[in-house]
């Protein structure tokens, strides 16, 4: 069974994750701690933007209502964005940004791997094959930094430990399946995120072990992004993200 219109919301969830995190990374432009990371952050941001574009274009095509990738990326209201809360969290310091990237990539790399291997939607499988390689790099790069900062200087260890306390509670949402997602899982479009949990746990535990970081015990995971209930920073993010298309509708490069 190929993708049908009811799959659009599920695809948009992933597209929104990629767009919002890509935008967050773009905010580092000109502010990275060293030139080498300036390039790395921008590269990762562009990877995610590329994934978002492909997903928006695909969703727009399936939906067949004439909405383009630009319409979907720039002209929806805040409540219509269905990204998870993790990706919209503010950049904070370099430790926050790298840990957020690590949590996300540790989920997305196996996620895309399974989409590439088994999705009933051939276009999605194609997007996934390319995205998996990109996320494998994000995972390696961010993981190396988590290790070096966690097991680094007194200051870097403190900053990374603070980031874990702040961000870990947002990781639960990666494994929650919205009704739209459940439908996509049932038709073989996407893997069940629950099936990726053990692997994610292992990835995190291995890096935390090397980084000498403690795994926090979170009683209640934060959620809401998949229902369009975003944090207070989301509006500011969208104001920046959407400014050009709102001020100059239809503007192109």
């Amino acid at each position, binding site marked *: 069974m190929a993708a049908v219109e009811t799959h659009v919301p599920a695809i948009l969830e992933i597209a929104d994750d990629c767009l919002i995190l890509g935008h967050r990374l773009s905010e580092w432009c000109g502010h990275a701690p060293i*030139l080498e990371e300036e390039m790395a952050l921008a590269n990762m941001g562009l990877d995610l933007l590329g994934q978002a574009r492909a997903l928006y274009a695909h969703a727009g095509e399936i939906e067949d209502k004439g909405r383009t990738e630009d319409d979907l990326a720039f002209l929806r209201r805040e409540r219509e964005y269905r990204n998870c809360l993790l990706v919209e969290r503010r950049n904070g310091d370099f430790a926050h940004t790298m840990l957020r990237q690590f949590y996300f990539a540790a989920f997305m790399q196996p996620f895309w791997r399974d989409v590439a291997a088994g999705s009933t939607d051939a276009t999605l499988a194609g997007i996934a094959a390319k995205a998996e390689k990109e996320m494998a790099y994000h995972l390696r790069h961010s993981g*190396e930094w988590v290790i070096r900062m966690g097991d680094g200087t007194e200051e870097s260890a403190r900053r990374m430990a603070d980031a874990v306390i702040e961000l870990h509670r947002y990781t639960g949402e990666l494994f929650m399946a919205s009704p739209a997602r459940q439908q996509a899982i049932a038709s073989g479009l996407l893997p069940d995120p629950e099936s990726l949990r053990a692997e994610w746990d292992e990835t995190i535990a291995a890096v935390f072990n090397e980084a000498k970081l403690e795994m926090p015990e979170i009683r209640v995971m934060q959620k809401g992004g998949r229902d369009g209930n975003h944090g207070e920073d989301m509006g500011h993010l969208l104001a920046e993200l959407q400014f050009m298309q709102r001020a100059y509708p239809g503007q192109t490069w």
Partner: protein
Amino acid sequence: MTDRHDLTPLWEVFIRPRNGLHHRHVGSLHAADSALALQAARDVYTRRGEGNSIWVCRSADIAASDPSFAEANFEPADDKIYRHPTFYDIPDEVGHM
């Protein structure tokens, strides 16, 4: 506070454009260790498909010839043109050598 450059020393980067060619020096960067230097090299120097293999080495580990000794090193070779194999007649069939 420790100087940032003590924590992230300079590395030289070599890229091989494709199989069969040799690695060429393309530039340098700062990184804490070889793993991060390789990643930084990938991010800084292979964004446009420049290669398929990267080497890095600490700049401090390169022993370089002394520029002030350049005349003594290299000028003696200038008048020994017999070292260039230009005195052979090469048959046309051999083509470009």
